[in-house]
């Protein structure tokens, strides 16, 4: 097994056409070169501190802890990052790398728009032009983020094929990259894709685990017993898990979208899928017996993805992490609970991690410590929430707004 090739046990790798290979070789080389460079590290930290606002707070969830009556719960509030989620961290890392490689343009795929927003943001800040691919269906569902990306100067191009969602945006972005990699960098948005993306994004994101270590040592004098994170592609999970991998006393739990049911197309539980090789990497995928990718669903747009980062698949395989899933209903309940008890409105993605904590904490002794990764803030989900909660007043507001526009 050659780590340098991006394998994690049998997972990972770089399964791409030759036309992409050189680009990834160049990227890999530039990356390993950059991380040896103190100045690069310094610049990365500079932007994390002065632009995204790191470190993000680790909040003791006193009310939730009391309410659940078990383990102590801490919330790592990644929603406090600039643009409202953890995504900006690897965006800054990759954008600085792209600068080093003298690229002029950043390409990104986006599902819900969070990664696109973060990419558009770093593009503006670091002087790149920016193209974001987004499934046509997602554009129709997530227009507010499209609007914000456009304000930031990004061009948002619809992916009009496939089922016109995230995976099709990945496809379109990859093709753009293939044709334009001499001038452009493909800023992939999670710990997925071919090597070096999973390694690179995990390393950039590992600052989250570093912060948690320091913060929890200060608060509790010891490391946590559990860390819980939601998983779409796995960047926020790997970010908070990575620096704890060697600390076997910290159990790591990755939570997927249980969705509406276990039926194909009604969830995004990639860990329950089978091993495949898609989008350039080997991992668990939701696919049929022919290897065709299946439809997925999640209430959280950022988790509506049929694959999962290869390192997570590996860690699951060797038993270092536990994989679990929670249903839409549990997510909504957890969302409501944490809003009212802790004054934190989590992204629906992050509410999956909260839902797991809500189930786990009461089963644990009071001296146990759980850290939940709140990967993003929830204001972005207001349209989905108002829909689920059937908020008539919100609908009326929209009607009135539209009437004024006519």
């Amino acid at each position: 097994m050659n780590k340098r090739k991006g394998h994690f046990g049998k997972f990972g790798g770089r399964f791409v056409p030759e036309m992409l290979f050189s680009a990834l070789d160049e990227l890999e080389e530039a990356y390993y070169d950059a991380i040896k460079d103190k100045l690069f590290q310094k610049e990365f930290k500079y932007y994390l501190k002065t632009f995204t606002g790191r470190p993000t707070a680790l909040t003791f969830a006193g009310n939730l802890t009391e309410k659940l009556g078990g383990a102590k719960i801490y919330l790592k509030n990644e929603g406090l990052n600039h643009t409202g989620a953890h995504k900006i961290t690897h965006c800054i890392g990759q954008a600085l790398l792209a600068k080093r490689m003298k690229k002029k343009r950043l390409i990104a795929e986006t599902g819900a728009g969070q990664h696109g927003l973060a990419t558009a943001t770093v593009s503006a800040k670091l002087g790149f032009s920016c193209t974001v691919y987004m499934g046509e269906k997602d554009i129709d569902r997530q227009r507010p983020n499209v609007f914000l990306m456009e304000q930031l100067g990004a061009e948002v191009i619809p992916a009009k094929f496939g089922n016109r969602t995230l995976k099709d945006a990945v496809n379109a972005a990859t093709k753009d990259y293939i044709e334009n990699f001499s001038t452009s960098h493909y800023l992939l948005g999670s710990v997925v894709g071919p090597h070096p993306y999973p390694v690179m994004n995990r390393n950039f994101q590992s600052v989250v685990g570093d912060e948690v270590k320091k913060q929890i040592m200060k608060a509790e004098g010891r490391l946590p017993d559990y860390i819980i994170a939601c998983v779409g592609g796995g960047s926020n999970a790997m970010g908070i898990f990575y620096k704890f991998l060697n600390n076997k006393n910290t159990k790591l739990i990755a939570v997927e979208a249980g969705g509406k049911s276990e039926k194909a197309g009604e969830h995004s539980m990639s860990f329950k899928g089978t091993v495949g090789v898609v989008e350039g990497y080997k991992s668990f995928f939701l696919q049929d017996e022919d290897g065709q990718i299946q439809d997925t669903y999640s209430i959280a747009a950022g988790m509506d993805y049929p694959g999962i980062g290869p390192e997570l698949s590996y860690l699951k395989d060797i038993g270092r992490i536990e994989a679990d899933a929670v249903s839409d209903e549990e997510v909504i309940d957890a969302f409501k609970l944490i809003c009212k008890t802790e004054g934190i409105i989590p992204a629906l993605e992050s509410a999956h991690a909260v839902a797991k904590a809500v189930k786990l904490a009461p089963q644990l002794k009071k001296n146990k410590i759980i850290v939940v990764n709140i990967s993003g803030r929830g204001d972005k989900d207001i349209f989905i929430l108002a829909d689920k909660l059937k908020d008539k007043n919100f609908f009326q507001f929209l009607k009135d707004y539209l009437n004024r526009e006519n």
Partner: protein
Amino acid sequence: MNLIDKQLIKIKNENRTGLMTHVVVGFPSLDKTISIVKNMVEAGVDFVELQIPFSEPLADGPTIMGACEKALKDGVKVKDAFDAAAILSKNINVPLLFMAYYNTVFKYGTEKFCADAKKAGISGLIVPDIPFEEEENEHFIKFCKREGLKNIRVMSPSSTTERLKINSKVAEGFIYCTARQGITGSSKELDPELKSYLTNVRRYFKIPVAVGFGISNKERLNQIKPFADIAVIGSAIIDIINDSLETDLENNLTSFLRAIID
């Protein structure tokens, strides 16, 4: 002797550029796939590439993607590709190649895939997303070899010397070169650096060179001939299928190919 090798010798002896055409299995229907391929062979093509539809065709342009999507929607299965190959190989005498994405192969079981392909009369596999670097775990080349299938490597204008060298060590049959950096599909001009690219390819590969992507008419074909042992026609054929009434399809295809072949 593998049919591909035979055909390559024949072309060489005839001192002409060979022609490889492409179909998506099950597009526009399984029956039509069979009849289209037969048509192609009658028109005089030298190789036929049967693409097994995959839901995430990363290396294909919108035309082929659309065809794959349509075939999958119609319920085409991987097994159908093997069945079609079996029928065709019994009826025609030009080499058939599977074009597939690696997930299709892997999910089927690489060993079994190669064995069954052989049984169905396939002569070579074009799997663009299984680089040599993964051989250690995947044994794709090994199983191709075991079954006597040509493992056709796909190179692109962006391939560095290092990539050419690495692939030259394992390439078999012919080397498949995309004529421009980018996805399949028709475009107006041939890459101006095509010549130096293909010259470079020939420096490292001793096997014949197939050049594909973007060939839509006689004129384009002639542009390529000086550099190519085999010319590949892909999207142009799907365009014809898309633009033809069902009843005209075979006529249109035949006239297109005749015009190209002379």
